[in-house]
């Protein structure tokens, strides 16, 4: 409770939490409020917003309901963002822990691989991966994780390097625990907090990368995505700007919300640390 109270002390954190909560409600409520396929043709094409009560945000070039697409797009954005961040954190912390704990040749090899991935811009990597394998939701998640795991790996390794010299690790060795067991049961859980602090940045970046891939036509075409909506709206930017502006605002708010909430978490834990 204390932690929550501290988290809610900063106005940024409150704003971030509210935006995130709204977004999650949107994503969860999408199939209830807008059952059926959000890409179904619902009315006349290019209806401007606030003209028709049943289509409050208007329709796109094919007459699809923009509000329904926005809600269903929130699902895709959040799902991809969270899944990609989870995958990146998982891969990163495992690689980082192994490298840090084993040391020597294993460390060198794993870190050089990390270097190699870090030298290639993450977006370029995702772009190449998706265009080779073919766009689908799973592939997009994998592609984003591919470029995002190196940060957590480096942070995890640095933490592990300091933790592995601690007394309780030596103790675990003495009682004959298997090194892998020590690494993943004793060391990793203690190395996690700073790694998790990266998660908000990774989620925000993953949502943006997904939108950028969809914008370039490399998203899953069978799902609504905000990036895809912006790309579709771009061809009629001068005549129907709302088609790009509406999902654009949603995207900005989402990334801002995730980032602010993440900052809030980091700050509240930092305060606790400095107090103790």
């Amino acid at each position, binding site marked *: 409770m204390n932690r929550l109270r501290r988290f809610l002390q900063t106005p940024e954190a409150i704003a971030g939490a509210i935006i995130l909560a709204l977004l999650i409600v949107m994503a969860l409520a999408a199939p209830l409020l807008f059952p059926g*396929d959000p*890409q*179904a*043709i619902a009315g006349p*094409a*290019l209806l401007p917003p606030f003209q028709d009560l049943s289509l409050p945000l208007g329709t796109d*070039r*094919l*007459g699809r309901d923009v509000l329904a697409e926005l809600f269903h797009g929130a699902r895709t954005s959040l799902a991809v963002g969270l899944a990609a961040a989870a995958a990146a954190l998982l891969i990163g912390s495992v690689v980082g822990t192994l490298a840090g704990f084993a040391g020597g040749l294993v460390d060198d090899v794993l870190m050089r691989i990390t270097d190699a991935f870090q030298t290639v811009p993450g977006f370029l990597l995702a772009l190449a991966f998706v*265009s080779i394998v*073919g*766009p689908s939701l799973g592939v997009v998640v994998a592609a984003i994780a591919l470029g995002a795991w190196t940060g957590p790996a480096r942070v995890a390794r640095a933490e592990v390097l300091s933790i592995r010299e601690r007394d309780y690790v030596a103790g675990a060795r003495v009682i004959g625990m298997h090194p892998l067991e020590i690494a993943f049961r004793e060391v990793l859980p203690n190395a996690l907090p700073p790694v998790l602090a990266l998660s908000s940045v990774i989620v925000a970046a993953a949502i943006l990368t997904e939108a950028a891939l969809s914008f370039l*036509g*490399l998203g899953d*075409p*069978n799902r609504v995505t905000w990036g895809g909506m912006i790309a579709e709206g*771009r*061809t*009629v*930017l*001068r*005549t*129907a700007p709302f088609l790009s502006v509406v999902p654009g605002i949603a995207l900005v708010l989402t990334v801002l919300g995730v980032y602010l909430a993440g900052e809030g978490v980091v700050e509240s834990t930092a305060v606790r640390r400095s107090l103790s």
Partner: protein
Amino acid sequence: MSDLTISRRGLLAGSALLLASTALPTIGFAQTPKKGGRLILAADSEPRNLNPAIVASNGVFFISSKIVETLAEASFDGKDGLEPRLALSWEGAADGLTVTFKLRDGVKWHDGKPFTSADVAFSALQIWKPLQNLGRTVFKDLEAVDTPDELTAVFKFAKPTPFQLIRNALPALSSVVPKHLYEVGKIEDNPANNAPVGTGPFKFAEYKAGQYYRLARNDAYWGKDEPYLDEIVYQVLPDRTSAAAALEAEEIQLAAFSAVPLADLDRISKVPGLKVITKGYEGLTYQLVVEINHRRKELADLKVRQAIAHAIDKDFVIKTIFLGYAAAATGPVPKNDPQFYTADVPTYAFDVAKANALLDEAGYKRADDGKRFALKLLPAPYFNETKQFGDYLRQALAAIGIDAEIVNNDSAAHIKAVYTDHAFDLAVGPPVFRGDPAISTTILVQSGIPDGVPFSNQGGYKNADLDALIIKASETLDTSARTELYKEFQKKVAADLPLINVAEWSFISVARDTVGNIANNPRWAVSNWADTYLAG
């Protein structure tokens, strides 16, 4: 706006358009052409190979048709829809074995050497027949080209070849390149492929990758006083939205090939100083087609194909996707073709109930989730409209219980997936009708075409009757008998639906008021522009 309504009505009236257009005054002004000036226009792609004799495609013609000329060009009012360019006359023998061309006198290549019948013979035998994407079919029986004198070329065919076909092929397939530059070394690697040398009104001057192509006036051009322009600059603007902005900012004076998105036309037609022109593309009709993989057992059933045809609301496609700048298709020949089109074919009205009934009859009942079966749908990525139609088709199929999953690919991957790997159930394609069904239309349904030939029947469709009809038509010399066979062909295709023709569309130009002599032939954007001028 008046141009626009005339053309819209014209498209709907089909072939009447061609007749009507001849009666209309030429678009632009009734003033005498002015000499000089630089025309700057938008180019959306940068073809590497600019040799139109090898790559007969609109992307290449757009630039190189001003440099390299053909034997004849399409025309609104010329005999058989043609007007002379490098050839002054053409005549086919009654037995279909020879075609005689009389060539223009006093024509010089851009490097000063004289143009002769040897150049025509070389281009035909060494390039059009063995190397050209379209010429391979049309000139497959060309055996020799005799050159009795410098201005006569006699094409000799091993098998009777319809003169109508050769005539219809002239505007797109007969680009003549200089023998003296191409006879040494491998033709495909010749440097002139990237910096073409021709006889046309403009010389190739300069190409800066990612920036522009520049063509300069050919002072020694054969046309009297032509060309009027000093220079043509193709500004590379790959982004479609930027072409409209560049026009408004007066950075460019012309955007052809629908470089301005259809949705922007209404707005831009109201901008003072700009005009929207729908004419000048009558000879370049694109067809919106649903390609079908007949290897899928569901799709091999005619009832299922009929159901899909009934599920497509062509009216919606025309109005919403093409914003009215298209016409509904009835079969494999477009309505605006003056020679071959027939409306007397089976048609498929938009009728979801009937489509559902047909699928039930075929034995594909809805499962508990309302779905009958699932399909993979590959929309071609070349046009916004083909992609949007893919999105629409998915919804139209959902209404009749077919669950279509869209697979997006880039151009190269799409061509490989559909035409080589056959990894599709339905595909959305934009084949081009080139004035004669034998040039690039019959191969869309003919069987026995090797894997990997793009824009051909790769759906595994085989119909012995139709194949026999196609072969018979290709050997029939009499023009009216041949035309009748192609009318029969349209009926058979519409009845058996090897593919589904949905719509036919062409392009739109947007130009500043100052550009004169626009759209004065049916292939204007890919013609030589010798008479185009800038006023004021």
